[in-house]
Every structure is written in C-alpha cells, then in structure tokens.
C-alpha cells in the first residue's frame, strides 16, 4: 500500500485513507477522444470518478453522454486518450499505456455485465460461468460447484445444462451476472444489464449486485436507464456531454 501513498502525492489530492477505504476504482482526469480532425468526438472530458469498496454506484445520463465509454475505460478494454485508472490502489492505466497485464488483471479482479448477455453459444449456462473460473486457474470440479452455486443463487439452477439459445433473454442475462460474479471480483462493471429484464427481475439483479458489493466489499458501477430501481444504489452519478454532473467523490465516504 506504500505504492498507493506514493501515487497520492502525484495528484489524487486525498488524505491516505485506511487500507479498507482504498477506493475500489479511481478514474482520474480521464479524457477519451474518438476519431481525428473533422470526425473528432470528445466522449469523455476530464472525468474523475472514485468508487469505494462495497459501494454501489449508478451511472445515469442521456444517450451519447459517454457512460459506456467511461465504463469500458474503467473495465480496461477501451484505453483512454489521457488520464489515469487506479484499481484497488494499483495504477493500471496511464493514458493509453497499460502498466500491468490488463488481461490477467481483468481475469482476477473485474466482472462485466453488458446490455447483451454475450454468452458463448456453444457452452451451457453452467459452462459459461465455469469457463470464467477455469481461465482464472480454478480446478474444474471446484469451478463447477461454484458455478452451480451462483446459478442456484440467481434462480436458474434448473437451466444449468441448457445452451444459451434455449434460455430467455432474462435467463441469459442472469447467467452473465453469475459469470461476472464468479471470480469474486473487486470491481463489477455493468452496462445496462437489466435492459432485457422485466422490472421485477431487473430490480432483483440490482439488489444482487448491491448484496455482493456489501458482502465481499467490491465496488459496483451500473449504467442504467431504469430509474425505478435507483433506491438500491448507494450513490448516483450523472453524466452529460462527457462530463460528470455530480461530484465524483462521495462526501459521506471521504469526508471532503
């Protein structure tokens, strides 16, 4: 954690928090510019967002505001043009430069859910969850048990042996959620994960995120348009035109 302290001097401007309060993720002065010249789009304009461990954040905003861009930048799959991304105190991105093996980091620490379930069509529901565990070096029999446990938890244990094609959109999405949670990630990133679900199921998924976040102290960022389930979130962040509208740091958490 010394390295964290070192980095704070460079510019987070925060008091060094106690270990358990190291932000789960920090995006610091992140700018993302797509294209060049005539077609240049500034999707993110100097965005700074911190999410504490165990904190569940909703990211709202109109279409084109840059929500997905911010989320994918934080998910280490869309390198920003400039700015830094620090996860669990570790500097992982500086501009477009990766400071670590991003894929290994994603595998160990991040969980993703997107609007589409993006399941692998030739694997069963169970195997889709299992594969996330196995690529993270979990022995097959343990992976299987944990995958089953997660599916059970999400109420689709009875469909474990079905291929994604045979599942409804909502069931597929729940498999994707199970996959995202499989490796007990320190950060869960979800981009409109409930778009394919009815409001009841949608709420259930949000509640599950909150529960996981609180139980395992992971940070959760969810892009959503569904304003009915907002009470589940600890904090709501709004975006517009590539900027955050609300202060990025929750005063309750850090006592600014």
């Amino acid at each position, binding site marked *: 954690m010394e390295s964290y302290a070192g980095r704070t001097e460079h510019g987070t401007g925060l008091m060094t928090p106690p270990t358990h309060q190291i932000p789960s993720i920090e995006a610091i002065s992140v700018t993302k510019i797509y294209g060049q010249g005539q077609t240049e789009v500034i999707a993110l304009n100097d965005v700074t967002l911190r999410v504490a461990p165990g904190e569940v954040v909703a990211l709202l905003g109109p279409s084109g505001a840059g929500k*997905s861009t911010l989320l*994918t930048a934080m998910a280490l*799959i*869309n390198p920003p043009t400039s700015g830094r991304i620090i996860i669990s105190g570790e500097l992982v991105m500086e501009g477009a430069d990766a400071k670590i093996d991003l*894929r*290994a*980091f*994603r*595998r*160990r620490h*991040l969980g*993703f859910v*997107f609007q589409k379930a*993006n399941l*692998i*069509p*030739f*694997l069963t529901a169970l*195997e889709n969850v*299992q*594969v*996330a565990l*196995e*690529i*993270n070096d979990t022995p*097959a029999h343990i*992976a299987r048990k944990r995958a089953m446990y997660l599916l059970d938890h999400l109420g689709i244990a009875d469909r474990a042996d079905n*291929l994604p094609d045979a599942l409804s959109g909502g069931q597929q999405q729940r498999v994707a959620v199970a*996959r995202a949670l499989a490796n007990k990630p320190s950060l869960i990133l979800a*981009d409109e994960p409930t778009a394919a679900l009815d409001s009841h199921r949608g709420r259930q998924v949000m509640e599950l995120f909150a529960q996981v976040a609180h139980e395992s102290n992971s940070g959760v960022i969810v892009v959503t348009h569904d304003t009915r389930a907002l009470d589940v979130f600890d904090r709501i962040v709004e975006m517009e035109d590539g900027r955050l509208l609300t202060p990025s740091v929750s005063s309750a958490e850090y006592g600014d």
Partner: protein
Amino acid sequence: MNLAVRDIRHNFSRFVFTTVGIGLLLMVVMGMAGIYRGLIFEATLLVDRIGADLWVVQGNTRGPFAELSRIPVSLENRVRALPEIIRARRFVNHSIQREHHGKPLRLMVQGLAWPDDKGEWVSLVAGRPLGQAHFEMIADRSLGLALDERVKFGKDVYRVVGLTTGMSGIAGDGLAFFTASDAMTIQFDSPSEAIRLDRSARLARTENQDLGHTQPLLLERAGGLSSGIAELPRPQVSAILVSLNPSADIDRVISTLSTWPDITVYTAQQQKDLLLSGTVDKSRRQLGLFSVLLIIISTIIIALIMYTLTLDKIHDIALLKLIGARNRVIVGLILQQALLMGAFGYGLAWWFGQYLFPYFPRRVMLETPDLIKLAFITVLISMLASLLGIWKAMQVEPNTVLA
C-alpha cells in the same frame, strides 16, 4: 473444460461435413502416394519375379524396358556354354491390344522359355502352369479372363489354364504368360494377305535378279515359306535371362560376357535401376510433384476452413479476451480444432481408401512408412493451417464484444 470439443459438439454436422471434405482431400494425397508406390512396384515387378541374375541384351542398349533390344535366340546356347551358368532363357515381352468379346483387351505378353520354364514361379490363384508347348496361357486376373476361357490371338486360339493375380507390366497392363514361341508367334503374327503380298514381292525381286534366273530352286523358295529361306534371319528375342550357380562369382561371369562385342550385360539390380531412372522416372517425378502440390493445396484449403471457423467464433474469442482468457486458451481452441479435423480427416481418408483404391485400374499401394509420413504431414499442415485463424484471433480487440 475443453472449448474446442464443446464447439465441435455444438456445430457437429458442420464439423462432420468439413472433416469429410478434409478426409477426401487427404485421401487424394494418400492415393497419390499409393499410386507412386504402385508405379514403382509394377515397373520392377517382372524383373523381381522372373528371378534372373543377369540380363543379356543387345549391344549398347539399355535393355528391353528402355528401348528396342534384339538378339538372336541362338545366344541362349552360347551363354549356356559358359561355366557356372545353370540356366539361360529367352525373354520375350511385348504389349498387345486386341478385341475380346467386342471389348478392347490390353495385355502384356510374356514368353516363358518352354520347356525349361513352364511358369512354375508365377503364383497361381487358380489352375496350373503351362502343360504343353503351344496354345496355353496363364492370365492375370485383371484381364478379366476366366479359367478355361479361349482367346484368339492372330490365327490361333489359346486356352487359359492358370490365373494369377497382381502381375502387371510397366504400363499397368495385366500380364499373360505363353511359351516363348507362342509369344513370338503372337508378336509377329501377320494377316494372310500381308504374307501373300510379302511372298509375291520376294518372288518379284528374285525374278528381276540374275540369280533368280540361274537358280530356279531359289525362285521357287522365294515365293514360299519364309522359314525355308536360309538368308532370312530367324525371329529375334529381347534378352536372354541368365541364372547362375549360387556359388558362382558373378563378377567373373559379367567380365567374361562383357568381352562379347555384340551384347551388353546387366545385373537384375542394374536392370531395375535403369527402369526407375529411365522408363518410369518421368511419371514418378510427375506424381511426386503432384503430391507436393496437393499437400500445399490441402494446407490452403484447411487454412481457409480454419479461418472461416475462427471468424464464426470471433465474437466469442473477443469475449474470452474480455473476461481475461490467456492467449493459450484461444490458440488452444483453434489449434485443437484443426488437429481434431486433421486427425479425423486422416482416419476417414485411410478408411475410404481401403474401400476405394482396390477399384482403381492400377495398383495403389498404401505402405506403412508412407502412412506414417502422411500422418506427420497432416499434423504439420493442420498446425500451419490454423496460423491464419490464430493470427485473426490475436488481432481481435476485446471491446468488439460491445460493438
């Protein structure tokens, strides 16, 4: 969990069709190698089976398989007179194409030096060796003749008394064994009209010469049988086959024979080498090059298949990268699939071949060393072929999942 196997299971019919395609392709490669071996085998079959130690041929020629070789039959006796020689046989061999039951019948006539050689060395599947000096034959099965069947060659009818199998000449035509004199009769058979014209031409020539006027007997002979004219040489044979005493010093016999200016002598091995480096050399190289071409084409086709299969899965591969799969997982997925296709394709190729190749008109010989070599080549081309797909998979960005 093996992703390659899961994917195959999911798209099983596609896998089966693709593998059958690859299998057929490999079968052609396998067949090519088999035809190549068959060609060599057939070319050297006769030299191997006839069991002569030395081949005496016309001076300065490369023997009956390479070019025309003509030596007098009497050479048989000259050779036989040498020490250490247990057998000297005339070698009469030529291809003919005749009609039999309205269908063309191509065969290679092989003369046996009756009564020395009745064809006991020919392995028979039915019947017996030759039993009389004329009008009997041993036929290879591929000629489609039955035991006891009668076939007309020239003015005579020959009876099939024995059947053999797998005996074919350089050009792949089935062999038929006759006594040497029958073989020569078949070879030099001319229609009666040609003989009549020949005789009257001889008569006319003689009539126009002084000799013809002064020697009435000569004039009479000129219009008669050709065998009655002393000046006409007797028909010649292609070679004399020499068998030596097992204890004989072959080099001494060769050096003795080499002093005879009218002949050239080859060992059986030299005769075989001449065959392989001469007569069948071009076909052999043609087949060899064609096999190489086929292997290259197979690699390209399998590469395209693997590329297409990878493109089909590119979204899943991007997702695997997104959730953090190592490259080894992704490479494994593509490579294992290619290897499985190669392996099953190879198995199918072998299996198809077992049923198909025997129906080929010429011999296709699948030999174990060739099969092992091809197995290695299959593994190699499967790996090479997956490179394009692997390259594509390595290119894909994880965030294309979101597109």
